[in-house]
Structures are given as C-alpha cells and as structure tokens.
C-alpha cells in the first residue's frame, strides 16, 4: 500500500468517526437548531414579521431566512469541532491519534470535515424548516450560496479547533460561543439590515466580521447585501488560511496536547 493511500485511509477513518459521532447524538446535534429556528420563524416571521413590513424590499421572514441559516451553520460547525476535539483531549483518546503515524494536516482536516458536515447538514435542515413558513423561497445564486456555506463552515470549524486546543476545562469551550460568537452573530445583520441603524452604529457594525458572512450568504440566497461580497469572500479565504496555518503550527508544537 502506498503512503498516499494510507494517508487517505486515515483521513476517511477520522472523518467517518467524526460524522458518526454527531449522528449518534443527533438529538443533541441536529434537532435543537431545527426547533429553535422554527420558533424564530413563528415568532419573528409569522407573528411579528407582518407588522415590521419589508426589509431591503423583501418580506421580513424572507429577509431573515439566510441570517438564521447562517446562524445555525456558524454555531453548529464551531460547536462540533470544539466539543469533539476537547472531548478527545478530555477522554485521552487524543493519544490514539498522536501515537499513530497520521500527519498533523490529516488530523486537522478530519476534524474540520466533521465540523463542515454538521454545519452544512444543520444549514440544510434549517432551510427546509424555513420552507414550511415561506414556501415560495427561491435561491438567487446557488453557486455563491454553496460557496459561502462551505467557506463559513470551514472558518468556524477552524476557530472551534483553535478554541479546543487552548481549552483546559469545559468552561473554556463555552466562553467563546456564549460571550463572543452569539452576540456578534445577533448584531451581525441576522435580523436587520444595518441601513436601519444610525450612521455611527452602521460604522461600528462594519467592524463585526459576522456582518460580512451573513450578508454574503444573503447575497447568494436573495441577491441583496449591505456590504461588498468580493471583499467578504477574500477575507474569509484569508482567515481560513491564517487559522489553518496557526492550527497546524500548534499541533506541531504540541500546544495543549503534548507535555
């Protein structure tokens, strides 16, 4: 067996293990976003939405759908990798990976694919749920939509991986999602267009990276955006390369995993 074939088998093994992990606990990983987003669609879409009227020329519920899909993708891909990698550290099964001849890039890629798989699966589930509330939804630019979906899932899976590397306790893996990610996503244009904000807060909002992710996805799904899509895509790719390289550096150094 050639070395490349062995490496491919290792990657398939780790990916299957990661996907099997979140599918095994599907009640915790796949169902909650569907339930939560259904409530958002009922309350903000069907009940309050008609009173709000249009947002950027669209029905409010229609405007909300890309933001809520993105919210689910970001939190699911991040949560999958941070909990899975911290879990293997906590249970010491990280030793199985470290003792094996798997290159670090295969370990990183396996966990990231797991995070992307869950993020994309949850994104599709939430989108299908949204069709119950807005059956006429059509995706304007499928290629851009899928590209942003996957890039976002990769980016936040990498961030989850970095969080898990540095985490020593269960508190450490919940601090970032609770106190950083969630507020930034909610203030990143999921529920509103920044054009409704006073000028000062519009400028402040431009410093929120979630705004770019949500709006690029909205451009793909609905064809409307508050920001430059090309700039957003370039920044996503840039941060994926940056975080990916940093994660590999930490794995090589053994930060958080090797004494």
């Amino acid at each position, binding site marked *: 067996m050639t070395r490349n074939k062995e490496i491919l*088998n*290792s990657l*398939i*093994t780790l990916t299957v293990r990661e996907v099997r992990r979140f599918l*095994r606990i599907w009640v915790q990983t796949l169902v909650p976003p569907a339930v939560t987003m259904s409530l958002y669609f009922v309350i903000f879409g069907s009940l309050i939405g008609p009173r709000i009227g249009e947002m950027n020329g669209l029905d409010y519920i229609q405007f909300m759908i890309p933001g809520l899909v993105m919210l689910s993708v970001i939190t699911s891909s991040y949560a999958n990798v941070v909990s899975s990698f911290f879990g293997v550290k906590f*249970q010491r099964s*990280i030793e199985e990976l470290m*003792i094996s*001849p798997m290159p670090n890039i295969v370990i990183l890629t396996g966990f990231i694919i797991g995070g992307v798989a869950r993020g994309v699966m949850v994104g599709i589930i939430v989108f299908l749920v949204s069709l119950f509330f807005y059956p006429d939804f059509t995706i304007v630019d499928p290629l851009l939509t899928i590209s942003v979906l996957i890039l976002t899932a990769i980016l936040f899976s990498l961030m989850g991986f970095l969080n898990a590397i540095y985490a020593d306790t269960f508190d450490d893996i919940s601090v970032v999602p609770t106190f950083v990610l969630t507020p930034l996503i909610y203030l990143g244009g999921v529920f509103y267009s920044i054009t409704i904000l006073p000028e000062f807060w519009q400028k402040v909002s431009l410093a929120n990276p979630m705004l770019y992710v949500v709006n690029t996805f909205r451009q793909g799904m609905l064809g409307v955006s508050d920001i430059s899509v090309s700039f957003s895509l370039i920044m996503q790719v840039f941060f994926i390369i940056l975080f990916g390289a940093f994660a590999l550096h930490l794995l090589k150094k053994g930060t958080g995993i090797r*004494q």
Partner: protein
Amino acid sequence: MSDLALKISSLEKKYASGVKALDGIDLEVKKGDFFALLGPNGAGKSSTIGIISSLVTKTSGSVKIFDIDIDEDFNEAKRKLGVVAQEINFSPFEKVEDIVITQAGYYGISASQAKPKTETTLKRLGLWEKRSEQARNLSGGLKRRLMIAKALIHDPELLILDEPTAGVDIELRRGMWDFISEINNQGTTIILTTHYLEEAEQLCKNIAIIDKGKIVENTSMKELLSKLDVQSFVLDLNQPLNNLPSISGYTMTLSDPSTLVVAIEKDKSINQFFAELSKIGISVKSMRNESNRLEELFMEIVKSND
C-alpha cells in the same frame, strides 16, 4: 541495520514546572527482547515511554526505533510501534469493534482490511462476544484487553506495555501474560513497565531500573537475580515445633509452630539445609520464597540510590 529495536542516548526531559524527569539516560533494547523497565513512582518511566510514543516532547538526546531517528521521521518510526497506555484512552461511547477498526484506520488500514484482523484479535483476547457493546460497559479487565487489541491491530514490531495489568484480577492477568508471551515468541519486541515485580521476573529476559531520572541498573534478569546475597524461604512443617531448631550457619525464625522461616546466603546450598533438617527429624511439607526475589533486589537498588 543494527539488531536494536530501541536505542535511547543521553535522553533528557525537563518539564515547564522545572522538574527534571530524565537526566541523560541511555538504553538499548534488542530485537525480540522481552524487556522490563522498572522504577518507583515518579522515577521517569512514563516520561521515557511518553517520549518514545510522542506524547511527551524531549528536551534533548536521541531516540531511535529500529534505527529510525524520531527527529528525522517520527511517523515512520510510529508505524513500528504499538503502545498500551497506563490510562484507558479510548472513547467510552464507541463500540468495541469500531474502536479497534478505527485504530487500524489511523495506521492507514482500510476498514475492509482491518475487519478480519479485528475479529481474530478480539477472539484471541476474549472480547469478540462484546464487540457490539459500548466500551464503557466493559469491566476493568476487559477494558485493559481492549487496549491491547488496539495496540496490536497494525502488527507493531515493538510493543510497549505501560502497566497493562494494573487493577486486573489474577486470572485475567495470567491470561494476559500468556497472550503477551505468545506475541513475544512470534518475534515482537516487548517493553513492559509494571509494579507487579513477580510479573517482570516471570516474563522478562532483560531489565533496566530507573530512579530519579537515571538508569541505575541495566542487565539480564538472570544476572540481576544472581546478585541477591540472601534469600528467605518459608517452610511449612509436617509436625509443629516447640523450640527453634539449632543448625549452625543459618538464621531461622518460627513465625508459628508449623512455619519455619530461614535465610540462606548465596554461597550456601538449600540441599545442605534440608539434609540438616532431616538429621534432626524435621520434615517439610512445602516451601516458598518469603517475598519476591526481584522485589528484594529492587528495594535494595532503589534504597542505595537515595
């Protein structure tokens, strides 16, 4: 190509806390050997094994596994290495069979190739009936056996067993000894650390004792045991004695009227002692060592290093 499975030279490990766990150790283990690495808690055994298996980063020195320097191609060296860690290190929520097949996958073996080997190994270790159970439902002894199955799935040439029988009952332990001996007889080099010195004495051909980060003894088991100056034997007598018998040249005590304890120096024969007993009409029902021979030597060596 040397005949060494492992060569450690001037290996040092200093932890961030400032603790120097290894102080320049040198160690060689020949191919096919069954080697005991013993030492008290905190002596440096786990640090040594951790460095060999990449769980611990060395401060300086070199480690070669079958002539492959871990600094040059650690991944290639790891292919030849199997490790049974001291602590359970598999996911408790996965099924027994999946754990072993996944481990094989980490070594580049596809699931279809790993399945027959997994079946053979699990059957040999008495785990096949439990293959569909989550690992958390296994008893302590079965978890230990699963650790061994995992470590063997890629046919390692060097198997490191870090206290593999800790907390395992005697029946299971003996079964594991047989299994490990069989693997050694098939050509796999084995390095064993254990606190059961009787286990090391029975199984291992060569031995190193590490203490305070230094190798304080490194020789064959036979050579080491021959250094024992005095051995104490417990004799169960056929008839009880009221008084201690008088035999010159032997130190004796009666722990109860039917149990005589005698210390026999290295240069004296146990046959001679039995002859002396016969002369005064004392017959012996059974005999055993008062304590494990290796244990006595181990304590002597460690004490002398204080």
